[in-house]
Each structure stands twice: as C-alpha cells, then as structure tokens.
C-alpha cells in the first residue's frame, strides 16, 4: 500500500469525439485527503472524465499528471494506484466472486489469501454468494463485487462513477464509509448527480457550468 501523499493535476483538459467537444479547458488540482465530486447533466462528460483519469481514454487537449510524494509518475504506473468502479465496466459472467478476487490478486501481484478474499466479500455483503457465478448476480451485487475488487489493492486514487446507482440502503452506507476511509488513503473522485453523493465531496466540479473547481 502506498504511504506517500498523492496529488492529481488536470490542466486545460479537453475531450472531443469527432468535431464535438464533450468538455474543454478543465483545470483542477486534487490533493491527498480530498474528495472531488463531478456533477452535470447527461452527456456533460462525467463518465468520460473518469475514463480519462483512469487512462482508459486519451485526452484531446491538456494534460493529466499524477504525483506520489514529490515524484511525477507515468500513466502506466498510475494504474497501479488507481481504482475505478463504474457501471459500464463489466465483470466476467462465467466466474464466481472468489475467482474474480483470485484473478485480480494475480494480475496485480498481490497475496492470494482466501482469508483476505473472504473478509472483502464479507465487507461488501457477498460472503454467502462467494461461489456463485456473476451471471446469477443482480446489478447491485455485481457493483458490490466491483467494490471488493477495488478494495483488494486499496488504491490511492479512487474513481467512482454513479457509485450507489444500483445499491440499497446498506450499500449506500458502505460506499459513504469507503469514501470517508479514502481520505486517509488518498484521493476520491465521484461522478454523480445524486444529492446524497454530492454531499460527500469537498469540491464540486460542475461540467454543465464551469471548467474550474472551487
């Protein structure tokens, strides 16, 4: 787990598809312990911005830079300290929850300890369905498993897209707890329009209104 302070800087960031700019000239600096909430109407680019920050898409303009301590790290290094939970990123329907955790422990070079996997599934409320295939899960359960996968490597930069959209009351409380914990671990960035989630942030970036954080 990373113990140095992380910092994320966005400078004059823009993204366009074809000739249409989704957003342009976004600038922000998010420091260790801070939570940024991104809001805006449908199509304003909330999810696109998270995908850019995760390195899943390339910006059309501007730069994204990550720092750990005083070191600037490359996008490929940044992926090792990033965790993205989003509805449009799917899980493997043929695999069980435990098989997912084992797969991602192997991919990230982490300990493949059954006790750790069990504790994570217990935390996200999936312990009793640990050996069931994801194909049999509801949308909310699949989202809970994505949280377990994210918790596996305890990312310093946590990116959440509509984090409680499919969750029940218990699930929403779990997410609020995770965001609060993240203040000690690093940075959280949440894309949402849900008033309950807007309250989780220290800053609001409203893509429909302005390109600057306050």
């Amino acid at each position, binding site marked *: 787990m990373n113990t140095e302070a992380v910092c994320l800087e966005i400078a004059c960031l823009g993204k366009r598809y074809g000739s249409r700019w989704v957003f342009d000239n976004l600038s922000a600096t998010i420091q260790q312990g801070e939570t940024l909430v991104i809001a805006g109407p449908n199509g304003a680019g909330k999810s696109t911005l998270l995908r850019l920050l995760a390195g899943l898409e390339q910006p059309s303009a501007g730069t994204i830079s990550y720092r*750990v301590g005083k070191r600037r790290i490359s996008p490929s290094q940044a992926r090792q300290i990033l965790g993205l939970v989003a509805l449009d990123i799917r899980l493997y329907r*043929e695999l069980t929850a435990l098989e997912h955790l084992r797969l991602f422990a*192997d*991919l990230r070079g982490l300990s493949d300890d059954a006790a750790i996997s069990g504790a994570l599934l217990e935390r996200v409320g999936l312990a009793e369905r640990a050996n069931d*295939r994801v194909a049999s899960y509801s949308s909310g359960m699949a989202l809970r498993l994505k949280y377990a996968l994210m918790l596996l490597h305890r990312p310093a930069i946590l990116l959440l897209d509509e984090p409680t959209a499919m969750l029940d009351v218990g699930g929403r409380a779990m997410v609020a707890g995770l965001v609060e914990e993240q203040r000690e671990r690093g940075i959280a960035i949440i894309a949402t329009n849900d008033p309950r989630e807007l309250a989780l942030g220290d800053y609001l970036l409203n893509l429909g209104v302005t390109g600057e954080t306050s």
Partner: protein
Amino acid sequence: MFSPSLWRSTWAILRKDLRAELRGRVAINTLLLFAITTVVLVSFRLGPLGISRDQRAVTSIAVLLWIAIFFAAMSGLSRSFVAEEEAGTAPLLRLAASPAAVFAGKLLYNLLLVAVLEALVVLLFAALMNLRVGNPGLFAASLAAGGVGLGVATTIIAALVARASVRGALFTVLAFPLLLPLLVVAVGATELALAGAGWSKAWPELRLLAAYVLALLAASLLLFEQVWEG
C-alpha cells in the same frame, strides 16, 4: 507500487479464459462444428484419398487439411479479444494487467485452441479419409510450426479488430493475406511429410515457418501495447 509478475499475470489470464470458455463453450463449439462439418463434407465427396500414394492425392490431402484448420481457426480464434470488448470486460483487464501479460495470456490460450483443433482435424482425416503419414515426426513438426504461426497471427489480428464494428468480416479479411505465405509453406511441409520425405528435404520449409513465426511474434510484441491501449 505493486510490481506484478508477468508470468503470474499471464497464467492468471490463461486460466481465466480457459475457465470462461469451458463454462460458456462459445469458441470450442464453433471450432468443433466448423472442423467436423468441413472434414465430413470433404470426405463424403472425395472419399479415402489417403489410400492413394500418388502426388496429386498427397497434395490434395495437405491442402484440404490446412483449409479445414484455417477456416475453423478463423471462426473461433478471434473470440479471445472480441469477447472481452463485447462483454465490456476489457477495461478491467486494461486497468489491472500489463499489456505484455494480456498478449502472452491470450496467445497461450489461442495456441491451446489451435493444438486442440489440429488434433481433432488430424483424427477426423485419419478416420474419414484414411490419412497415412510417411514421416510422422515431420508431419508433427509442420503442424506445430504452422499452428504456432496461426496462433500468433490470429492473436494480434483479433486484438486489432476487437474494437471495430464489423469484426467478423474484418478478421478474415486481415488474416488471409497475412496468413497466406504461412499456409503455402505449411502445406508444402505437410505434403513432404505425408509423402514420407526426409527431414533434410523439408528443412527449407521448416526454416521459413520458424522465420515467419519469429518475425510475426516480434512485430506483435512491438505493436500490441499500442493496439491494446488504442
């Protein structure tokens, strides 16, 4: 920072793909169906060609064998990457695994499928067309070298086409010119093996196959990260 081991990641991706395939059986069923249909159809019309040892029959068998392998491979091997994109799971792999591990895991998976496919086609040829092999060692070597080339080429092409909207057609269109030299040489080596030629006679074909595989593998390793990251 975490530093995941390449081999551990590669093995994890291979194991994941095998597990998913054994539970879903999409690629395996497609490969089996295509291979069986092709060989049965050929055997119905041409009969037990292998009985005859004349040059024409040997050439025909070698060509038909590789046609069956090639088209069955085209129908199933693109799944390795296409399935990830279609199911929306590719971003999970992009975030957690290094491009090198993804390529190696998918390549090993495709090589395994090619090996199963070749074994099946050879068994079907032996059963339905009375296949007789003059030089079994050379036959195995030509199948292995051709199969590795087929596996490497289909892996990088599958990665290339996975994000396109007309994946199926594009896969075969891109694969055919890339694989044509490989198939021509593999047919030549297989023909020599069926006719019972010695290793020395087939050495130029085997060297060409090895060179093709190495060149394609080197190009794939250089290109893959760019292709995968888009």
